[in-house]
């Protein structure tokens, strides 16, 4: 019976109901999209790192595992020294030049990288020949409308696209190492060094040995490095996620507060009637909370569906941007956040409803 009244009340004000549901849905989508993009992008990075075929990663002293490499502090003599260490079969250095946003240009020794990773799989064109040649992965080419032979200006240089390769290999934009070193004024400098070992199952032991010998250098197994690429181990991203969740929750709270507050005001008389026929305070509260819960649950479902919409948009409208994954584990979390925000929003209107004097409510116009 109470459910019937709840449905009847929601159906009575369809616009308010739909707006409340939409607001909660947007709240849920905000959270799920953020989490999906964080996870998707990190997993994509991990996939690319694995695509290098390397077993060990060496980064300069003083850097943290995941800080972006804005400088190239290591000498390019290092790979040769490292290659001479026991069990190491191959060492190749790369240089990373950040671009705007999340993009970077990576300079690498094409021959060494090919030996290590098995080489790029080109969909069109092939390896850079000239210093001004550049290769990009397919999603980047698609988004920027690049063809083999196109020119592109990055870091104030004009590049010619010589090849377009399948994604998942180290980086999205690659040029010859020497060219990038020269153009950025870092001749002979490297950002990181990738090592391949004879027996990958002993990678950790080799890392330990290298760390002892080269103190200060950040040396990891690639396995460990990719495991770091998760939301939880990235403090910055984690805090950002919390901030967005907080904002989303506040928005949901305000909307539900407004919706339920106007509902209580508008139903002053009806609440008076319910009290006159013997409704207890808890019944009145129960009624309002049920209504809120229903809004929040429907809003959550709509929000989850909307997330598929944002995923589709990301994929089709801006393919190169961020990769969004569907993170099922966050469905209940986002739902719980939305429901909690909504319930908190219903508390004050609920108290107002309970405290209304029945006789005054009945004479309310």
């Amino acid at each position, binding site marked *: 019976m109470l459910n019937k009244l709840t449905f009847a009340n929601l159906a009575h004000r369809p616009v308010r109901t739909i707006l409340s549901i939409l607001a909660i849905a947007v709240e849920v989508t905000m959270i799920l999209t953020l989490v999906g993009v964080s996870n998707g992008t990190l997993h994509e990075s991990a996939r690319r790192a694995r695509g290098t075929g390397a077993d060990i990663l060496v980064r300069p002293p003083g850097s943290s595992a995941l800080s972006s490499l804005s400088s190239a502090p290591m000498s390019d003599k290092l790979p040769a020294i490292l290659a001479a260490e026991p069990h190491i079969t191959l060492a190749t250095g790369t240089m990373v030049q950040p671009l705007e946003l999340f993009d970077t240009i990576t300079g690498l020794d094409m021959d060494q990288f090919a030996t290590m990773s098995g080489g790029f799989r080109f969909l069109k064109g092939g390896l850079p020949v000239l210093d001004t040649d550049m290769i990009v992965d397919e999603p980047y080419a698609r988004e920027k409308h690049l063809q083999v032979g196109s020119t592109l200006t990055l870091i104030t240089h004009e590049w010619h696209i010589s090849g377009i390769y399948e994604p998942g290999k180290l980086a999205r934009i690659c040029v010859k190492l020497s060219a990038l070193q020269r153009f950025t004024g870092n001749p002979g400098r490297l950002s990181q060094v990738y090592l391949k070992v004879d027996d990958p199952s002993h990678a950790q032991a080799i890392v330990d040995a290298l760390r002892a010998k080269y103190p200060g250098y950040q040396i990891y197994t690639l396995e460990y490095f990719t495991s770091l690429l998760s939301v939880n181990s990235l403090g910055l991203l984690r805090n950002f996620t919390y901030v967005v969740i907080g904002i989303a929750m506040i928005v949901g709270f305000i909307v539900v507060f407004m919706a339920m507050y106007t509902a209580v005001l508008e139903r002053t008389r009806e609440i008076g009637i319910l009290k*006159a026929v013997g409704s207890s305070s808890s019944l009145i509260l129960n009624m309002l909370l049920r209504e809120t819960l229903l809004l929040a649950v429907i809003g959550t479902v709509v929000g989850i569906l909307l997330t598929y919409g944002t995923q589709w948009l990301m994929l089709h409208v801006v393919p190169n941007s961020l990769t969004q994954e569907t993170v099922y584990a966050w469905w209940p979390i986002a739902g719980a956040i939305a429901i909690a925000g909504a319930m908190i929003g219903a508390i004050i209107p609920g108290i107002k409803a309970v405290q209304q004097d029945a006789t005054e409510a009945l004479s309310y116009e």
Partner: protein
Amino acid sequence: MSETSIIEVRDLTKTYRVGDVDVEALRGVNLDVTPGEFIAVVGSSGSGKSTLFNILGGLTPPTGGSVHINGKDLSHMSNAERTNLRKDTVGFVFQKYNLLPTLSAEDNIRIVRYIAGHATDFDPHFKEILSLLGIEDRLKHKPRALSGGQQQRVAIARALVNGPAILLADEPTGNLDSKNSTAVLNLLRDLNQRLGQTILMITHDEQAAAFAHRKVHMHDGQLI
């Protein structure tokens, strides 16, 4: 308290405080109503009729004196106890029908059974009341689709569905034209005569009061 009274009011006072001013709405009311009686309280506007109605129905606590309904003392009841009183002991009919606009007539009645904690289907006795009220074929409609007279009859059905000891009606015909007023008053009289329903009706209309067994006059917060 006398064994025979279903309503027993002694020296009842009610004072409202409006700002710094005390408004004495009831100033020593005494009243006895026996079971099965149909009594009308008549008085001019502002004489305190609705205040008495609200106190008898447990909507407002009294300031002084004693009130017993069906043997229960209202003067010392807590809010929750008065809420319980409204579930089963008294039924209300208001001037402005006061049906829930989002529910059908039938559900307006059922929800009162639900609130009182009873099964929501109608027993044969109540079906008889429905047929007496002549609203069986209008039950699926929302209040908006009903005439004032029909709405008031639904409200009467709602007031009776839990079998209250007394039916309180405050200006039940105040919003109705004379034809519908007469119909509703006749119904109240029928309910009283056929089913023995105790009714206390408030009105400022002497003609309406004539349908009752007994009339008491309220003047300036006192019954005379």
